């Protein structure tokens, strides 16, 4: 089934946000959650969007996923404007652009078994039962799970890390070109987190998957990302390669963010000095 997951190499960005703005109406006016943001996602790369709470990074993600309407601006996918597509076209978009969300608990319909969750939405692919089983095995294999250990289980029988892996496998079932991970690892324990990040890394390296990694944790971005975008109050304040942004930040906010991150061994020293 590996050819199923091949990405077609394209020139230019796979997915981009062009001057996207999102305003929410609140009592006595409105707040701008995402302010005229433009960002490109290149095929086969991991791009991390880093920001603290209220930076608008998750709002941006939901707009890219077309789960939330934009106030203005465009979402472009493979050169096509997908900002306002609907119905069947939108469902087609969702086979190419998939996501894994933050909460490994509420991402599951607790009434469905893992097998059911994985099979859902595969009806339109017109796969034979055998091929479908094979696809499930392949996708669970990508995240280090075996069908026998997972498909008959219900979400409450899995650990947080396993659930998040099943969610990644579910996204892969659709044979997506882009995978959007919205704080997908932040509720996991550190040791499970690295294995989830490794899975994303492998998917990029082996399948050429484009990953959009949204996080508040600059350390995770550092481990995984090729490029980093830093957001503050709805604006992109800095962007560039991971090395440039993290090791040679230009923007004050990025500098402050990096200075405030507690660092396992560095902080020890800071304390000694202070």
């Amino acid at each position, binding site marked *: 089934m590996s050819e199923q997951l091949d990405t077609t190499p394209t020139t230019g960005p796979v997915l981009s946000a062009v001057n996207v703005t999102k305003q929410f109406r609140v009592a006595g006016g409105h707040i701008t959650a995402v302010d005229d943001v433009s960002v490109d996602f290149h095929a086969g790369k991991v791009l991390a969007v880093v920001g603290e709470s209220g930076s608008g990074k998750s709002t941006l993600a939901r707009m890219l996923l077309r789960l939330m309407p934009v106030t203005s601006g465009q979402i472009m996918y493979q050169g096509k404007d997908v900002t306002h597509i609907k119905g069947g076209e939108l469902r087609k978009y969702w086979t190419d652009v998939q996501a894994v969300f933050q909460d490994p608990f509420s991402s599951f319909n607790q009434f469905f078994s893992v097998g059911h969750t994985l099979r859902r939405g595969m009806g339109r692919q017109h796969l034979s039962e055998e091929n479908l089983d094979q696809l499930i095995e392949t996708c669970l294999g990508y995240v280090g799970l075996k069908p026998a250990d997972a498909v008959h289980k219900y979400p409450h029988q899995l650990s947080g890390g396993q659930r998040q892996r099943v969610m990644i496998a579910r996204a892969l079932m659709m044979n997506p070109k882009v995978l959007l991970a919205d704080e997908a690892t932040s509720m996991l324990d550190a040791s499970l987190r690295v294995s989830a990040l490794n899975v994303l890394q492998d998917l990029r390296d082996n399948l050429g998957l484009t990953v959009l990694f949204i996080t508040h944790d600059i350390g995770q971005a*550092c481990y995984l990302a090729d490029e980093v975008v830093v957001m503050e109050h709805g604006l992109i304040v800095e962007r560039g390669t991971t090395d440039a942004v993290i090791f040679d930040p230009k923007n004050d906010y990025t500098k402050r963010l990096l200075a405030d991150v507690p*660092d396992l061994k560095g902080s020890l020293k800071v304390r000694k000095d202070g």
Partner: protein
Amino acid sequence: MSGVLMRATNVTAVYAADSGKDVPAVDNVTLEVPDGQILGLAGESGCGKSTLGNALAMIANPPLYVVAGKMEIGEETIDLSTLAKGANEVHRGYRGATVSLLPQGAMNAVSPTLRIRNLVVDVMRAHKRDTTKEEALDRATDRLKMLEMPTRVLDQYAHQLSGGMKQRMVTVVSTLLNPQLLIADEPTSALDVSSQKALIEMLLAMVEKKIMRGVIFITHDLPVLSMVTDRLAIMYAGKIVENGPTEELVNNARHPYTSALLSSVLDPTEETRTKHVLGIPGSPPNLGNPPSGCRFHPRCKFAMDECSATEPSFLYERDHAVACWWANKHAFETVPMEVNQA
């Protein structure tokens, strides 16, 4: 080192499961907090660190039962068991005044329509019924000035404060009675890094100014712990596996679990950029039916025959204790970090 502020011995706490079986979440744990120091309690979800915190703070409620344990704090010796008759009445006398707990998500528990000053008065009155409003507010104002925090916060409503400020205020309020020991459960986890830093600096100032004589800081976030603690205790599956000075533990981990945890930390450094961490294989054990011997042995890369057969007891090297067969055979050696990486 100065004396010991608190020594908890043989603490065992169980959850009553629906099946009628008791699941030990904290299993015969012994722990010390040195006077004037901050002890970090680290471990992954479900390792029992919060449960231990609740047991020490004497707020265990069904289905959690503390079945054994003694705590010596200052001059007092307290039976932590919640099974004894009248235990709750005895424990109530110590709560807040001797041991104060800052529970997980405390800042979200504050009613948004309450002014902080009302919270201050309520908390003071809960312990000393005849406290006047003025006394309570004076005390809070003094405390805020001492910590160089703005006193106008007292007149604001909880919803007007940022998450970080709210958490700092809750911390200040919960230590107004100068408890000997503060137990802070994941106080920084929901905060942005800048607020995290502010809270940590405030805690350090509080200890320095002797508002409390010791802190147990519970979190899964090792970098935060390395910043704030003097000593670290690592828990796995209801037991403490390693306990030592923070700096030594971070640099010379003696237990393979500690080592795996440390290497899972992703700091924004050049090293992180190039390393490939493997994570810990397998999943944490079922506490209702824990593995024999050392509970970490099914996931340990150094597991030997004795690991599954016998539970290792603590090996003390100066003030660094570790319960591990590998460490027993490799005195003073650091667990090679390479095993956790590829």
